[in-house]
């Protein structure tokens, strides 16, 4: 119990004292997972929308693959992204391994199926008759898709939250492709594992509290946007 309280006190002290390292870790986690989420949206929303609206042979298989991808274990992603980015791997020439960019790549692989899968579900929720009516009223296909996406925007914000929540809290991939390099690829979660391993439980507790606050604030902001649009 005293350890837990000590951790809370340590967290407050670390932040108030303006511990540069902690702020840098916090910022890196936010920047990396934020970027990964945005890239996942850029990939996942069009993919999910297309899967919801277009019929083609083998579609059922692709949809199943996307849904399965929503549960991709981060360590598996970490292992394969590491192998691809190794010097001897196919993308070794980019020298991306053990950089923040490598973590972003791995996190996009984790988050994109989540965004695509939830977008697919959100768009499919919009009644088919509504789409047909739009086309009958003279809307072009692009206009129809735009209106449908606007209709589905509330569940899609949930997709953003799920994607971000998935990558900010994952550890397996960040550790493997980032290497937990001090000052460069040390994120909140990898720092937590390291500090626990060192026996610095108070610092680990402080970092985990920071992560919880960060996740809460981001979700709070997104939720308030969602609920404002949802009306009373």
């Amino acid at each position: 119990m005293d350890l837990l309280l000590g951790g809370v006190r340590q967290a407050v002290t670390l932040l108030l004292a303006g511990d540069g390292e902690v702020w840098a870790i916090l910022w890196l986690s936010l920047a990396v997972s934020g970027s990964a989420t945005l890239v996942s949206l850029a990939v996942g929303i069009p993919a999910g929308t297309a899967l919801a609206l277009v019929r083609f042979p083998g579609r059922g298989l692709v949809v199943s693959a996307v849904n399965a991808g929503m549960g991709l274990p981060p360590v598996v992603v970490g292992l394969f992204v590491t192998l691809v980015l190794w010097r001897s791997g196919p993308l070794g020439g980019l020298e991306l391994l053990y950089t923040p960019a490598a973590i972003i790549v791995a996190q996009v692989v984790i988050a994109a199926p989540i965004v695509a899968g939830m977008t697919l579900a959100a768009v499919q929720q919009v009644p088919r008759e509504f789409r047909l009516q739009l086309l009958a009223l003279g809307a072009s296909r692009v206009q129809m898709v735009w209106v449908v996406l606007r209709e589905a925007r509330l569940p899609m914000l949930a997709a953003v939250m799920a994607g971000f929540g998935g990558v900010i809290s994952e550890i397996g991939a960040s550790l493997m492709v980032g290497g937990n390099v001090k000052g460069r690829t040390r994120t909140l979660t990898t720092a937590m594992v390291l500090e626990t391993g060192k026996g610095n439980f108070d610092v680990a507790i402080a970092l985990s509290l920071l992560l919880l606050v960060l996740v809460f604030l981001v979700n709070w902001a997104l939720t308030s946007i969602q609920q404002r649009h949802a009306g009373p």
Partner: protein
Amino acid sequence: MLVRPLVAGLGLVCLVAPAAAQSRVVILSTTTSTQDSGLLDVLVPMFERKTGSTVRTIAVGTGQALALAARGEADVTLAHAPDVERRYIAEGKLLNRRLVMYNDLVVVGPEADPARIRGEKSAVAALRRIADARARFVSRGDGSGTNLLELKLWRLAGLTPARSWYIESGQGMGATLGLADDRRAYTLADRATYLAFGRRVALRVMVEGDRRLLNIYSVLEVDPANGPRVNAAGGRAFAEFILSAEIQQVIRDFGVEKFGQPMFVPIAGRTDLDVQ
């Protein structure tokens, strides 16, 4: 609605992604113990200031650290598994093995000492007594240098510990100490991590001072023929740096302030025969 954050996000990606062509990057593969002790957090910035290179330190188990280097995925390695190191040297994968420093391992156990090994001088005899008493023992079981040394001690004791009293944690030293504490078991720990955990666990030092318990760290360079893009010059520069008189002094002083005793003993220029 989403266009502006998307553009901003892609800008951010470009910001954190390094330029594709980085020639002055040195990848150091090493063991978790050097990182957990905090030593690398001191040495690496000094090296970077001195040479202008960027070091990417990958702290993993010794087995993996050496395997990465042997594949050419690292430029230099700091490890503590002499037998495995010599095997890679013999295969020509790693070059120029030189001793850097040592610390020592200790056999720790619960206050009650069910196998009555407290004060035993020989680690091998202590393990034999633990086996005879069927007292619980926690092994790292992760292919780390500490784990490899422990397995060697069991071999020397003529035992294969695979019975109900032998627990494999599969984790780092810190987590393993925690597990041993919880199960009131014995374990083999490096002194640095044990000191760092001292106030958290009720384990006591049972056996220390045996020469077989020396944990010898060496620096090894990577043969550029191992793989594409090996920065052999950078790896050699790091090896020369860590063996220099100035850095050996830094190693000698490291940890004295925090624990009242040094965590590592520098031994650059010595050979295996000098220390074993």
